[in-house]
């Protein structure tokens, strides 16, 4: 069973006997805290998936969590997808590499370790083909123009291959004991949900009538060609052109024997994601768009019975010292703008920050109203960018604080 609220602290003080009446509306103060250290210390958790929309700091968060877990004694491998160059360099990654490499500079005194890799989707795909087909057949597939386009440029391949690689790393971890925790970054997809659909989409396609149709000529004269089918073949050859249709048929025929194993792998990965040993973290920044995406994601994970551990709100406005309201600050700034422009500026900044905190709070309140039970951790915005181990460590400390 999926444990959607597994990481929630046992009880909220003062709420134990309160029955909920009326709409299940959550308040911000009721939102449980996400304890990241508890999550990464839990040996029962072997996969952490970081997801969220683009630009919220998913890759940085994956790397920071992986580093923190390693320095607390876990044997970790982090699978990154398309990291920014300097972030990759900070982990010693200089190119796409399908084989995890140890990261240097990690404090291993507590028995942990950190390996990192950057997904090479074409090579991952090639390796799957090579491992499943005879040498002659894989050579035939690898040289098919359809396969080449599919494996290197097709917009969904990265999602398929990220999940495939996760499955491989998991199998290797079980077999060799090299790792006890896999942290996965998800691809910067059109929608943050694409990678969840990838395995399902692949299997439903492979089961589809189209494949049978395309396979028909390769399996000898089609005796029972229905009227519908001949319309389809007619249209396909008209639209694609005869040459492309033949290439496609050759590809499908060569791939035929692999379909079964591809489907099995896709289904296995999907159930791996549903496994209670997996924990999903949704990463968002405190703005309307990212929180909307995060809400979609939370709902989708629940629908698919995937174990959501919580929400990480990245780059929230840092708090200010209490005791000075925005109005007072602005009024004083007005008075001081001639005589002491510096103090006036500080007062304006203070007021601006309070406004920002207020806006973020109301966005979070709206999120919590709809999703009251999602444990949440917040991280204040850092003044500078993250691109080396010490700053990854700092992010890890902030998220666990």
């Amino acid at each position, binding site marked *: 069973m999926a444990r959607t609220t597994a990481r929630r602290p046992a009880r909220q003080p003062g709420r134990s006997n309160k029955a909920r009446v009326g709409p299940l509306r959550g308040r911000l103060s009721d939102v449980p805290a996400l304890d990241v250290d508890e999550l990464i210390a839990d040996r029962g958790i072997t996969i952490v998936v970081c997801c969220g929309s683009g630009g919220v700091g998913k890759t940085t968060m994956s790397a920071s969590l992986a580093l923190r877990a390693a320095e607390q004694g876990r044997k970790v491998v982090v699978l990154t997808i398309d990291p920014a160059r*300097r972030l990759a360099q900070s982990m010693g990654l200089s190119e796409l590499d399908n084989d995890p490499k140890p990261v240097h500079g990690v404090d291993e005194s507590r028995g942990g370790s950190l390996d990192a890799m950057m997904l090479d989707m074409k090579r991952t795909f090639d390796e799957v083909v090579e491992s499943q087909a005879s040498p002659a057949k894989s050579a035939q597939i690898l040289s098919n123009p359809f396969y080449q386009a599919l494996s290197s*440029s097709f*917009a969904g391949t990265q999602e398929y291959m990220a999940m495939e690689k996760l499955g491989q790393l998991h199998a290797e971890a079980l077999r060799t004991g090299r790792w006890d925790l896999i942290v996965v970054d998800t691809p*910067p997809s059109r929608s943050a949900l694409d990678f969840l659909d990838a395995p399902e989409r692949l299997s439903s*396609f492979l089961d589809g009538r189209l494949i049978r149709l395309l396979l028909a000529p390769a399996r000898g004269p089609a005796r029972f060609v229905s009227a519908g089918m001949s319309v389809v073949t007619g249209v396909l050859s*008209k639209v694609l*052109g005869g040459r492309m249709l033949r290439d496609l048929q050759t590809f499908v025929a060569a791939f035929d024997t692999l379909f079964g194993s591809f489907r099995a792998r896709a289904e296995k990965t999907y159930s791996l994601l549903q496994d209670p040993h997996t924990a999903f973290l949704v990463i968002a920044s405190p703005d309307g768009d990212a929180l909307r995406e995060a809400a979609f994601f939370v709902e989708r994970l629940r629908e698919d019975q995937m174990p959501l551990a919580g929400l990480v709100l990245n780059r929230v406005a*840092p708090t200010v010292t209490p*005791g000075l309201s925005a109005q007072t600050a602005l009024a*004083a700034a007005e008075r001081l703008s001639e005589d002491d422009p510096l103090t006036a500026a500080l007062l304006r900044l203070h007021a601006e920050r309070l406004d920002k905190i207020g806006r973020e709070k109301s966005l979070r309140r709206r999120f919590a109203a709809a999703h009251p039970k999602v444990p949440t951790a917040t991280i204040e915005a850092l003044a500078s960018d993250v691109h080396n181990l010490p700053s990854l460590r700092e992010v890890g400390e902030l998220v666990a604080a």
Partner: protein
Amino acid sequence: MMSDTRTRSPVRLHIVSGKGGTGKTTVAAALALALASDGKRVLLCEIEGRQGIASLFDVAPLPYEERSIAVGSGGGNVCALAIDTEAALLEYLEMFYHLGRAGRVLDRFGVIDFATTVAPGVRDVLLIGKVYEATRRSEDGRPTYDAVVLDAPPTGRLGRFLNVNTEVAGIAKVGPIRRQATSIMQLLTSAQTRVHVVTSLEEMPVQETLDALDELARLRLRLGAVIVNAVGETHVPGDLIDETAASDLDEAHIAASLKEAGVCADEAVVAGLVNVGAQHAERMRLQARQRQRLVGIQPAVVELPSLIDGVDLGGLYELADELRESQQF
């Protein structure tokens, strides 16, 4: 008509990309508003099924249909279209092959699903294909739209997206798909098309922008402008930036000033103000360093202010005016 005296820009298709999170949808929407001046008609397209345009303009989710959604900042008209891949494919088949019922048969056999989700590159060809069609469409000898603005995929996937016609050309050496791909590529590389890249003044987005400019130039696409979004205003007097960043300020003096202005502030409040100032000054220095990295790049750099109250319709018009005044579009 007054349109005869108007100078018409040769650029008809504006492709707006940028790193995720830099606000490319906001900038694309503001650009559409900016281009829609005196009677001009502009189409704003989105392709990723996110309904970002609808939420920006605060209207109901957009169907696969061109709808008027706003009056341009110069009095023209902005229409919006959310391109849906499946609908675009059926429309394409209907338009070029007159497949009414056959289209539905294809759907039943999973061909539509295959073409739009699994077949390499087809999805992107269809999406750009629709944009291509809208850009070229004309009514009564006049283009239907004076300009089309595309909210494109983020820079990380942009090259693959725009170059997909070449990718398709790799599988389809001849035939109708190849012909379609070739004519789309002709439009994309022509003087009628410009690619604009949105960034913020932070390290990773700037790096991604510089990388994207290289890649776009390699693909022979014409660069428009680099639009720097959400530029923070410097509040602290310029000569005090370093001291402020280092929290090296005269706290006693600040406390005295506050007292004079009628604010009762204890040490903690003063220290808090100094701290807020330090964070701000540090960010301004970072911003200045990143701005420096954009000096000397080939496309023009246009800066847009950070909208203090978040992005709403009023804010979009503010940004649109800034874009118009830059005279780069």
